[in-house]
């Protein structure tokens, strides 16, 4: 599994860089950082069918950090939800793909872009799956900075209270948010401890390690606690690109054509 997924992640990352519009596209670092998580979800974990994106038995995944839309689009294209050629229209005038996640794209379940929306919606899905005795799961990927939004804590209280065991929230803990370092802005301390106090199970993993992802999801599936789960995945913003790794600026800065070419050459 590990080797296969690592190869796919490499391809997705290359596809992501290829799609960037030089001088225009932002949110590069936050997109690169979740490539392994999305690769794992779409190629190993989620019950989804690219030939039938609206399959009534599918798991539903929401990218709450919608600004990393290109990471999701590239993953979906590589999984076969739509033609990879459409990635060429990313961030282009009249193109098919905008920067933020949108349901115009096959396989995208919720249009996002404003933070703190994904988890409440996923909680609604989880409630309905549970009420209809379905085995489906609601899985949401959010950022650590996003946890500043009060709406998430409303949903965390709700999920804990209603024991939504079919709800999984993955936190992309890259340690940065819009204006700097997350611990400098609103220091949440231990996210795991906090959500456990709210009635959730919590798992802390390396967000680039497929074996740890597999283990966490296996534990969730085997758990009899009846609680919703949060996976806190430590990631490196800009992962995979030497000049961007661990850099705050990779949130905003776009790359020029020369840099893009150099990165792609390096990736070969």
């Amino acid at each position, binding site marked *: 599994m590990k080797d296969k997924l690592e190869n796919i992640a490499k391809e997705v990352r290359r596809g992501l860089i290829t799609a960037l519009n030089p001088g225009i596209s932002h949110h590069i670092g936050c997109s690169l950082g979740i490539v392994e998580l999305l690769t794992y979800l779409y190629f190993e974990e989620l019950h989804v069918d690219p030939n039938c994106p609206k399959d009534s038995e599918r798991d539903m995944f929401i990218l709450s950090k919608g600004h990393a839309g290109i990471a999701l689009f590239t993953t979906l294209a590589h999984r076969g939800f739509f033609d990879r050629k459409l990635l060429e229209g990313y961030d282009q005038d009249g193109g098919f793909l905008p920067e933020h996640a949108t349901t115009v794209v096959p396989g995208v379940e*919720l249009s996002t*872009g404003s933070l703190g929306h994904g988890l*409440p919606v*996923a*909680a*609604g899905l989880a*409630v309905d799956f549970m009420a209809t005795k379905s085995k489906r799961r*609601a899985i949401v990927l959010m950022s650590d900075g996003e946890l500043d939004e009060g709406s998430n804590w*409303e949903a965390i209280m*709700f999920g804990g209270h209603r024991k939504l065991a079919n709800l999984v929230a993955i936190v992309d803990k890259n340690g940065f948010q819009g204006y700097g370092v997350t611990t400098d802005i609103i220091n949440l301390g231990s996210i795991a401890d906090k959500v456990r106090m709210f009635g959730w199970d919590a798992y802390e993993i390396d967000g680039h390690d497929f074996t740890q992802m597999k283990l966490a999801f296996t534990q969730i599936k085997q758990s009899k606690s009846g609680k919703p789960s949060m996976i806190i995945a430590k990631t490196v913003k800009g992962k995979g690109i030497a000049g961007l790794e661990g850099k705050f600026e990779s949130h905003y800065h776009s790359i020029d054509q020369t840099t893009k070419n150099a990165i792609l050459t390096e990736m070969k």
Partner: protein
Amino acid sequence: MRQVTIEAAHKIMQSNPKSYFLVGDLGYHAVEAIEQEFPNRFINVGIAEQDMIGIAAGLALNGNKVFVYSIIPFLTMRPFEQIRNDLCYQNLDVVLIGAGGGFAYGVLGPTHFALEDIAIMRSLPNITIFSPADETEAVLQMNLAKHIKGPIYIRTGGRTAPKIFDKRYDLKLGKGKIMCEGEDVWIIATGPILGEAIEAAKEFAKKKIKIGVVNMHTLKPFDKKLVASISGKSKLIVTLEEHFIAGGLGSLVAEVMAEDHGTARLIRMGVDDRFMKEVATTDKYARKILGLDAMGIIQKIKENL
């Protein structure tokens, strides 16, 4: 008025197993029947309106019809961005049942008044906005809501409402209802305050002056055609609403008149640009002190005839 609206939602739920009713810890003595009959489809999300709209979106995303009840400011203003992004942008089947249009919450004061909701909600694509004048209309609109795909906001009054319609009529989505024909002067009103307009027209009728009254029960889609036709054949249009003058029915009418080059002048009656400091135990009294009751309307028309 809220009670019959909630009951209409209850009836829809009885015939649609894929439906839910959500409250944000409100609805005491109003929603219990739904909770008892459908314990799994009634959800009190707690005092958490952003979460409430998000959950409604999640339920609707999976093909359910979802009713959400709350007092208007908490329903529309606190979670406005959730309504925009999660309901309207996704065009989901969620019916927002708002209680307390205008001053319906009386002594509870400005935090509970709803004088901005039309302005903000009408700015959203995909949404249908109903503003029933009485209980009969509220039920007729809920019957329409049963078949409408996409988000709906119904702005109901409070616990009491004037009875305007004795029986059900053929209410058409987005078509204003002419309550009485007029000549030079027309009043266009929305919501329970319509009763004041009808009363004012009756007073004028005693003096053989025919004042037209239009009941604008749907604000989105808006009946531009009717407004344009009245503005083309009359001298004065008065809009009447329990809402701030900016952004509500008066603004909707003004927009049509500005584009249509009719002959009429426009006077917009509503709440001026201020928070109300006066204590008013009823909406009736609030209208009186703001000059929005029948007497106030009569005086305003006389001044401008």
